[in-house]
């Protein structure tokens, strides 16, 4: 009898998670919280108006690759919202989503983008304007570890691309430039947020290289008085892809809600919330409206310069890859 009661309690405990209906779990990376904090209520309201149903939205935040791995290992995410396609590709290789996931939504499933910019101390004492300035002796640069953070990876690729595309640029010159920049990195933090803490709170370094939207967040949090944002002449286009996790939504029966949740990102309202959070919207009209807040930067996509993310990861960030070679030789 007692045993049965215990089993009952156990079953209730185990299944409590599953029973909650019409709820979506959005697994994301840690800096996206501010955006979804504004976006979720807007979506819930629109969805209620359209269907009369209420959806609750749960969120999970952490380092991007770690989050993707958790989903691959069974974290029941209805949707995954990351900052680089390779993290979602991981789910495709594990059979949770089809390989053509990116073609299921507009703009290759990228509702908004960002780019990599420089934060320098007030007055820009080291006259940092371009990627080459980061490799100059005496300039300390804060970049998170490209092996563990999407932020660091985009920075690395932006510098590499700038090295390739400079007048007379070549593979060897790009490598020399990236090597020079990483020579100037005093601490290699694990993620974007840790790098920000190093730069802003511990006051280490002359330049922090990070996403544009993160830079704006820092300005809100720490005030604009102590630093300036410098836009390099050429940078990388950081794409933030989203996807429905088919295996989860089919089991939970939440595909309809999950699809609507992601589609709403492309609505005027969704795009406006993105722009308000300093993410560059895809919608032309919304982009026009927020024109003043996004200075023009010439950008290139990772695919256009490096082929695919799989190729990038294999060549640059795998164990013994180019990053390991240049970083161990510092």
């Amino acid at each position, binding site marked *: 009898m007692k045993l049965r009661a215990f089993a009952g309690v156990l079953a209730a405990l185990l299944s409590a998670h599953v029973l909650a209906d019409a709820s979506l779990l959005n697994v994301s990376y840690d800096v996206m919280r501010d955006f979804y904090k504004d976006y979720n209520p807007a979506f819930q309201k629109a969805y209620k108006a359209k269907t009369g149903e209420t959806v609750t939205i749960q*969120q999970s*935040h952490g380092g991007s690759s770690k989050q993707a791995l958790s989903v691959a290992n*069974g974290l029941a995410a209805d949707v995954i919202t990351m900052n680089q396609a390779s993290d979602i590709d991981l789910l495709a290789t594990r059979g949770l989503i089809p390989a053509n996931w990116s073609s299921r939504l507009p703009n290759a499933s990228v509702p908004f983008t960002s780019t990599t910019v420089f934060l320098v101390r007030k007055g820009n004492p080291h006259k940092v304007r371009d990627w080459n300035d980061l490799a100059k002796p005496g300039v300390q640069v804060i970049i998170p570890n490209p092996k563990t953070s999407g932020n660091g990876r985009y920075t690395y690729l932006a510098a590499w691309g700038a090295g390739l595309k400079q007048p007379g640029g070549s593979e060897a010159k790009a490598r020399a430039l990236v090597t020079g920049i990483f020579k100037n990195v005093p601490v290699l933090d694990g993620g974007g947020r840790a790098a920000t803490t190093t730069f802003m709170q511990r006051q280490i370094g002359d330049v922090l290289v990070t996403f544009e939207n993160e830079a704006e967040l820092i300005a809100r949090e720490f005030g604009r008085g102590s630093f300036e944002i410098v836009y390099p002449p050429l940078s990388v286009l950081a794409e933030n892809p989203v996807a429905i996790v088919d295996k989860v939504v089919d089991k939970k029966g939440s595909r309809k809600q999950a699809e609507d949740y992601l589609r709403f990102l492309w609505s005027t309202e969704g795009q406006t919330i993105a722009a308000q959070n300093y993410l560059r919207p895809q919608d032309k009209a919304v982009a026009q409206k927020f024109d003043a807040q996004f200075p023009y930067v010439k950008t290139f996509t990772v695919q256009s310069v490096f082929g695919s993310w799989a190729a990038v990861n294999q060549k640059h960030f795998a164990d013994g890859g180019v990053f390991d070679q240049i970083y161990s030789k510092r």
Partner: protein
Amino acid sequence: MATLTTESRPVRYALTAVALVFLFLFLLLPLIGVFWEALHKGWQLYLSALVEPEALSAIKLTLISAAIAVPLNLVFGVAAAWAIARFEFRGKSLLTTLIDLPFAVSPVVAGLMFILLFGANTVAGSWLQDHGLQVIFAVPGIVLATVFVTFPFVARELIPLMQSQGADEEQAAIVLGASGWQTFRKVTLPNIKWGLLYGVILTNARAMGEFGAVSVVSGHIRGETNTIPLHVEILYNEYNFVGAFACASLLALLALVTLLVKSLVEWRLHRQQQASTLRTAEARMQAQAAQP
């Protein structure tokens, strides 16, 4: 007053000062820092950071996992210590080593072990998922990880105590006709109760403060699978410093209370051990005196 030290007075003072400065810099100052960061923007913000739904759910989950881990490990620990201290059997040293395993492996590895065991790509994990049971990235996984990392505390505390006390009193009880359960309740338990309490306090402190193993199996679902330490990390990463340090101060308070109770128990334990040595010595003397 007789002292055992031979160093001159300035040397002694200098050494004491170094120790005190060290304690202040590395223990007291960070602790004060936590409370200062939490409170420097006012009580209002401090309290609202603690009653916010996600914080409340983190507190609740922390209490739940401690409430499951502590009793379980209390029973396991007593049983293991009893078996090891009182009986000789094959594989005893292996069992002793196994009990220490959770101390030896890094908590992160412990968490990964559960992922390897219950992950969606494993036999057990996919079977459970097909039956609608979520173990990792849900409450059960967090409880499992907590039980695992806190496993050794009670047993580790009791084994030396029970070995030093010996089995004499229990043997006497059994000779006098007590049943096994009576012996345990009336002889063993009173003898080990302070040591047991000490083990339980340590278990509880670790269960509430555990970060590494729980972080791996949590999935970080806000308001659902975050414990207080995980909640602190997330808030800190979001620049919500008041919230982060408010929750951190809760853990620090818990640590201070634990420390206080621990010292109290330690003091009682010490006295009890002295009493028991005294008792044994007396008994021996009486036995010797009784001999012709």
